[in-house]
Every structure is written in C-alpha cells, then in structure tokens.
C-alpha cells in the first residue's frame, strides 16, 4: 500500500519537474543571428536613432529590419577597427549578400499591426514593446517555438521563470493590456482582420 503511494508520488514529482524545469528549456529552438550587431555602438558612437535604420516607407508602411543597402550606406569601407565590422563587410557588404536576420518581432500572418498608427499617432515609444533592444551591446539569440514556428517574443505565456529571459511586450496579452489601460478598443477584429 505504501509502495503504491510512493510510486504515484514519484511519478507525479517526475512529471512536475519535467513540466516546470525541463520543458521550458527544450520548448524553444535557439539560433544565433548572422551578425554580431551592437545597437549600443550605433546609438552611442554613431548617434543613430531607431528610425534612422528602422524607417517608414513613403506609403507609411514600416520597413522593419533594414536591408543591406541601408548598412552599405555607411559601411562600404570599415569605419572602425572591430573584427565584427570587418567580418560584416567581408561576408555581406563586399559580396552584396543580404544577411538573413532572424526577426524577434515578426507577427504571425493572422495579425494586422500598424507601426505608423502606434508610433506616429499613438506616440508609443519603441522601448515600450521592444524593451531595451536599442541599448544592447550584442544581439541575443533568436528563440523559436519549433512547433508553432513563432518567435518566443511574440507568442506564448511565460512557461516557467527558470533561467529564461523575461518575456517581451509584443504578445497578444501585452497588446490587450496596453489598450485596456488606455481605454482603447481591443476587440478581436482590431488585429485579427
């Protein structure tokens, strides 16, 4: 009888440990960005602002991650002495090869999100959703849920706060909470058109 209770308890404990400790670690696939890019260097030394590279097009759509043309505008030749910059020029600028950036913030196809409405009309700061991305010295690894295919930053409740980065502000709950706080419309069809 006692043996049965011990068996039940050990099964339960094992599952709890697996579900709370191991599962969050194996849930996401981690990949490195193609270039060791420092937002901090660009912001502090070059004095660049977010919208200098992450610009809006003439029609108001958001250009997202800058293409190589934008980088080549300054980096046709090395501007500093770092190995990262030299590597970037040799690997991408000189052969005119587009870096395959992994977008943390790419929303799924079923989400309609307008940057210009939030940034220009709503005066929402970049940091409010993207965190202190612009002040980091290196790009963090990209984490993707291999089953859904979504970036960790845009979907999924925090599974367990065990050694993992604090979740960002680009998930549906974040959108809803922000809209609710400000007394704005937050119906399903606002984003899921």
């Amino acid at each position: 009888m006692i043996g049965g209770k011990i068996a039940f308890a050990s099964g339960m404990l094992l599952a709890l440990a697996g579900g709370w400790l191991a599962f969050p670690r194996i849930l996401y696939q981690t990949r490195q960005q193609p270039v060791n890019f420092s937002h901090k260097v660009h912001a502090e030394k070059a004095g660049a602002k977010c919208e200098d590279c992450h610009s809006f097009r003439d029609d108001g759509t958001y250009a997202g991650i800058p293409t190589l043309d934008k980088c080549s505008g300054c980096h046709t030749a090395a501007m500093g002495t770092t190995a990262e910059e030299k590597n970037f020029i040799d690997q991408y600028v000189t052969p005119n090869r587009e870096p395959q950036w992994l977008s943390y913030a790419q929303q799924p196809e079923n989400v309609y999100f307008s940057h210009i409405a939030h940034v220009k009309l709503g005066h929402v700061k970049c940091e409010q959703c993207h965190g202190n991305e612009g002040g980091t010295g290196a790009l963090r690894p990209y984490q993707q849920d291999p089953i859904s295919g979504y970036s960790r930053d845009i979907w999924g409740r925090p599974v367990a706060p065990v050694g993992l980065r604090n979740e960002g502000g680009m998930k549906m709950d974040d959108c809803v909470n922000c809209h609710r706080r400000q007394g704005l419309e937050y119906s399903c069809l606002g984003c899921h058109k």
Partner: protein
Amino acid sequence: MTTTRRNLLKFVGGGAAGALLTPAPWRLITDTALWSENWPGIPRPARGEIRARFTHCTLCPAGCAVRARCVNGQPVSLAGVKPHPISHGALCPWGIAGHHLPYHPARVRQGPVKEALAAVSRAITQRGAGERVAVLDLRPGRTVSWTYRRAMAAIDDGLYLAPRQPAYAIDLTAAKTVVSFGAPLFDGWGTPGNVFAARANFRLVQIEPVETRTAALADVWLPIRPGTETAMAAALAGEITIAEAARETGVEEQAISAVKEAIGNSPAVVLAADPGSPLMSLNAKLRALGRTVVARRESPVPDAWKKAAPSTEMAAVPDKAIRVLLIDESLPGGYVPWQDIQPKLAPNAVVVVFSSSSEGYARHAQYVLPAPVYPEMAEDIGPAIDTVAAVFRIAAPLIAPVVPVVNPGELVARIAGLPQTDPLRDRADAIHKAGRGSLLSYADGKSTSMKEVTADDFWKTLNQGGCWMDDTGKKAAPAGLGKFGRSGTCPTAHDLPLAVVVAEARRGGLESPLMSKLERESNLRMTANRVALSPADARSNGIENGGRCVLETACGRLSVVAMIDAGVPAGVVEVAGGPRMADLCGANQRARVVRA
C-alpha cells in the same frame, strides 16, 4: 518496494496527474493548433513595400488601364485607372482577377521547345513546291502582329493569317440610338468603361432570340426568330415591308416600326455580333458612316516594317497548302474553328501552338509551347472597336513568368532570321518620330503633346503607366463595309432541327479560378459543357433538367448537360462560346440534342 504491475500503473498515473499540473500539455495543445495553421501550401500574404504600378489588361482587345497594388513587387489587387479617357477607371471581373492567371492550376507549364524548333526547321527546308509556312495570329493589330508579318515576308511563301478585323471604329458617344443584332454590348463588347460612360446618352434596341445580359439591360429587346436577322435589317433598310418582316422574324409590326422611326430620326448605329457581318453595312443606309461608324488610322510603324506580308484570311488559303503552321494563342482572341484550318494543312504539316491553355488549338497541335500570360509579358494592345483614335499602350509585366515560357514573337522572329531588336521600342520611336497625338501619364493624369516629349521619356512613361492617343482629327467614313444585301434565312433541316445561339462569347484561354468558382460553378454563366433548351424541346426529346445528353452538329458530337430554361424559345439550343463549341458548331449553326 517491489516493482509490481500495480505500482507501475500508479507511477504512470502519478506522472499523468503531475503533468496536468504543469504548462507542458496545455502549451502543446495550443502549439499543435498553431502548427496546423501553418502547413505548407497555405497561402501567405506578401510582406514588404506597398507600391502602385500601372499596366494594361491584355485579356481582351479593350486593353483597359490597370493600377496594380503590389506588395514587395507582387501584385495583390488590380483596379482601373480613373483618369483614363477610354476605360474611365472601370475593369471587368476578369480584369480584376487577372493577376491570378500565372498560378492557374490548368496552365500549360512545359513544352518540347527544342523538338518543335527542329521539326519546324526540318519542315521548312524539306517542304515541296507551293507548300507554305504560316502564322495564325488570333489577336491582330499588335506590334507582335507586325513581327509575324515581317517574319512571313522574310520566309519564301510565308503567310500571315488572321481573323477578319473590322476596318472601322464605333463612336458610341455620337449615337442616340444603337440597334444591336446580338452584339454583347454590356458583356464583353468594346471597352466596358467606355460603353457604360456613354450608356446614358443612347437608347439600345437589342435584337436577338434569347434574353442575354445585354438584352436584359437594353431599353427594348426584340426576341427575333433565329436566323431571320437579315429580314429585320431589310425591313429597317426599307427593302421589304414591315408586315413581311414581322411574319418572318416573329416580331410585332409595331415594334419594328418604332425601331425604324427611331433610327430615322436620330444619329444611330447598327452593331452585329460578328463585326464582319454584312449587317454592318446597314449603317450606310442609316447615313452613319463618318458619324457613328468612322475610319481609324493605325498607329505609326517604322518604315522598314512596311514591306511586311499582308493579312490573309484562312478561307483564302488553298487546301493542303500549309506545311508549317505556327499559332499564337497566347492572348484570348478570335478563334478560327479547327474544321476551317484542317483542310488547309498538308498531310505532313507541322502545327505548333503557343498557348497557356490546353483547351484551344492545343487539342489539335503536335507541339504545344507554354506561352506567357497576363501580366507576365511586355505586350501592346491594339485599339478596341469603340476606340475612335489610334492608341499605343503597353502591358508592362508586373511579375516574371512563374513557369518557363516561350515568347512567341521572339521565336517566330528567330525562325525567320529577323534581327533581334525590341519591336515595342522601335514602334514607340516611330510614333514619337511622327510627332502627332498626346501622351497621357496615369500617375499624375496629365496629358502632354508629343511635340514636348523626348523619345526616352515617351518610352519610360509607356512602361511606367501611360498611353499614347492619336489626334482624333476629322471623322471620316470607313472603307470596306460592303453593300447591304439580303441573304436567305437560316435553312431548317429535319435532322438538325435546332438553331444554335451562342449565349455568351467566351474569351478562350485561362480565366481566374476564382471566377470559375463564382460564375461557372454557380451557373451564373454557362460552362462549355452545358446547353439550354426550351421546355417544349426538352420534353419532345425526353430530356430532363440536369440530364446528360449529346449535342450533335454537322461537325461532330459533344456530351453535354442540359438545362431547361423557359427563356429559351422553342427551336433553339443555347450554348456557351469557346473553342470546343466553335469547333463543334463552326459556321453551321444547326444542331440537335439527343438523350445520352
């Protein structure tokens, strides 16, 4: 503790209970749901820069101006161009869905190009005396038509074949009364935007046996007995009495008198379903020539092109004379029934067709080469029947071909050994050199005299959204309409008792799968495998609504589905247009329908 089966089950039970208290199973459920939304093959909207690009629709000779909304270079929606003086911002349903065509599942995706070229070269060198090399151009009046004509002039005994083209234009804006003998004025005739822009100013009398869409929208519909149109025309021309016409046509005397009075009192125009029909010469009797039926100049061409082969009709070619026949079916156009072509072919003839569809001549040719579809290829579009002045507009490609394709013009030029130049640019330069007319730019809606435009700017505007329009000048009467003469009525044959009436001229070629879904599967339009019969004819032949039956003509048989329609008069079988029906019915418009 001993390991027993009971303890093992308890361990598994504890594990299951514990797992339910973790996020793992709940997360896996939602992830799996998301995974199922992202299967390969699920269409994904394009992302990227949104831009408007301009082009022209090539799906019919109207050549309406098109504004394409492109995301990351991919057209995602098409609309008309409002300042365009001919299309007036309108696009028909086919035009609106035109950007689907490159991805059509039934598109011809590959073809034996090398084998076809080798067979053509062999046949050209080995052909006997009097054997001809011919190009059949289903959409004459384009710049590539000139390439074909030049190519055929460069080859000994080359022939340029094309369906007969109207040598006139219709000025609807000048007409107060339009008498249409079955011309589908509101369903594919001319330029839709132009027709509807002029609609408020004319009264339409539609004369045809069945109530088509145009008949339903006409001011007056005269349901005429099939095959008696010439009798009606003779009465309107005053060649027979109204009483005689009424007896023959089945239309009331009063209605014929009213039409005759209307066309006598106002500027009028007579239209026929076939622009080459002798009925068109009734316009001379109405004094419409030079007023509503006018001559139109052709857009200038380089002087070097003027030694091109003349246009020949298929009927003028001697039997068994064609050794090599190249058919350009890349754009929907006038279909020449196969039974008119077949007798002209030598026994060992090589027939090559450039097409995106396997429906038309692909059924008869030895070699079918995949042709580009709209909007993949740079092409110009000749003027439509309701365009009074000459025009030059280019259908600038919006996307690269999504399958390996053969450019028919380039291939024919290569076979004939013509120098490899860009004929569109050459023609644009010739138009610029002529210095007449004006250039309309779609981006800003501005019209500029050609005298103020450089050749490079002209070319750039044509490719980025613009149209050259000739000066209208003084209206002139067209030549070649012939003399109106009354021919006999449609003969009745006991073995083929039904008169064939084409319900709607199908354009041929591919059409958007979306349109197939909306129109054909819902029976809003007739499909090629359907016929409509009157209840009386259906009853006498034992045919049920939706029943399978066989349509028989002098040219063959086709298994069809019958629809019983009280709107179809007795003695008539209504069919859809298209290559299969054209091959089956041809010029012999008599048929019978028997139960399968």
